[in-house]
């Protein structure tokens, strides 16, 4: 019994581990070559490297994150681009109506939150909000689906479809915001004024720490929420796994079903809310940066 439990534990941690590893393509020190992490895929035989994911250094790419984020971006921005191209001034079509509704929603948030003159804030808020929502929506797809199709359809043993659960993606967004905030701060207050603000008034270097941390927090908040959500989906999925493993665990099926459904419903809120929060904070930070105070 104890042995069986231990076995189950290993399988469970393996399962979780499996779902938390990205499809990685990177530089392997051992063989001094580029390639997929060991045993992650069976599609490109020649590109399988000897390194595991953990042995790859900074120069590696999470291909699933990159692929999914660009695919989702292409879908979302392609949709808005096409609708805009077909848009007409008269009575709008339903799709156009939807696009206009989204635009108006974001534009009103920008107009009420940002009082500067920059023309980039609207597009930045629009792009970040919609891109993040499209990422987050991937969390509502069944956790096992991507692995299933990745494995049987593409020969990939590891495939994470949720770009938000990979810190690189939210961090990239937050860094873009940070660069813009820095740019507009310097533009508004001058380089000297900005540095003075960071290091002198009113609490000295503490201001600098807060400056950095608020941007890191912007990324971590989004990442943390979605990562945790994904984690809970994985844990719920394990219940179904238990059901599949032995008949005595059939009892887990119903609670699993209820939990999955309720968590998914609740998660819809998080999906939209986190994107909204990211957008509003972006607007607020840029507003602070580009207005005198």
């Amino acid at each position, binding site marked *: 019994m104890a042995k069986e439990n231990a076995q189950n534990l290993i399988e469970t941690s393996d399962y979780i581990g499996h779902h938390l590893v*990205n499809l990685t393509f*990177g530089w392997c020190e051992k063989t001094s070559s580029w390639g997929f992490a060991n045993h992650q895929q069976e599609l490109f035989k020649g590109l399988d490297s000897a390194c595991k994911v953990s042995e*790859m*250094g*900074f*120069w*590696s*790419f*999470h291909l699933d*994150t*990159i692929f999914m*984020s*660009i695919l989702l*971006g292409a879908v979302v*921005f392609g949709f*808005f*681009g096409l609708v*805009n191209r077909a*848009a007409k*001034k008269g009575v709008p079509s339903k799709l156009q109506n939807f*696009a*206009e509704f989204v*635009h*108006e929603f974001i*534009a009103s948030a920008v107009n009420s939150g940002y009082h500067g003159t920059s*023309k*980039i804030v*609207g*597009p*930045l808020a*629009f*792009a*970040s909000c919609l*891109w993040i929502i499209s990422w987050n929506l991937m969390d509502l797809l069944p956790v096992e689906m991507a692995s299933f199709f990745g494995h049987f359809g593409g020969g990939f043993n590891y495939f994470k479809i949720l*770009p938000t659960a*990979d*810190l*690189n*993606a939210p*961090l*990239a*967004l937050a*860094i*873009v915001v940070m660069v813009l905030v820095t740019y507009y701060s310097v533009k508004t207050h001058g380089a000297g004024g900005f540095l003075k603000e960071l290091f002198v008034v009113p609490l000295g270097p503490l201001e600098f720490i807060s400056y950095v941390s608020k941007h890191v927090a912007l990324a971590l908040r989004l990442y943390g929420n979605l990562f945790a959500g994904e984690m809970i989906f994985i844990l719920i999925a394990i219940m179904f796994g238990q059901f599949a493993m032995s008949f005595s665990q059939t009892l887990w099926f119903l609670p699993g079903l209820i939990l999955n459904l309720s968590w998914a419903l609740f998660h819809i809120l998080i999906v939209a809310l986190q994107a909204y929060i990211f957008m509003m904070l972006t607007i607020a930070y840029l507003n602070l940066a580009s207005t005198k105070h």
Partner: protein
Amino acid sequence: MNINATFFAELLAFCIFVFITYRYIWPSMENLLEDRRKEISDGLEAASQSQRKLEEANKESATILDGAKVEASSLINQANSRADQIVDEAKEQAAEEAKKIKLSAEADIEQSANKAKDGLRDEVAALVIAGAQKILDKEINAKANKDIIDSLIKKI
């Protein structure tokens, strides 16, 4: 959680998507909505203007109608008075005519009375002559006594 070169790919992708939004999506949508807003406000303005025009036209038509009513009633009055006048004239004419007819009738009557008197006189004269002839039963020359009888007749 490991940060690696994926970060740069995401950075690049985000910049590209922001640029696409900045270049192709955001401004055209803003323009579209601004145009629509203007069109709608123009439409509302035009609607209220035409509403005003309608009210003005209503007022105008009401005044025209009132004027027409006044004119019509004055016309009716005029017509009535003219009709009265015509009737009066006709009455007058009729009266005159009647008078004329009466006069000519009286003249006729007088004439025929005179005629009848003449006839009667002649007849009476003849009767008188016959009576006298019978009375006298003599050979009285009718001619010789005519003067006497004529003077008799004239006395009648």
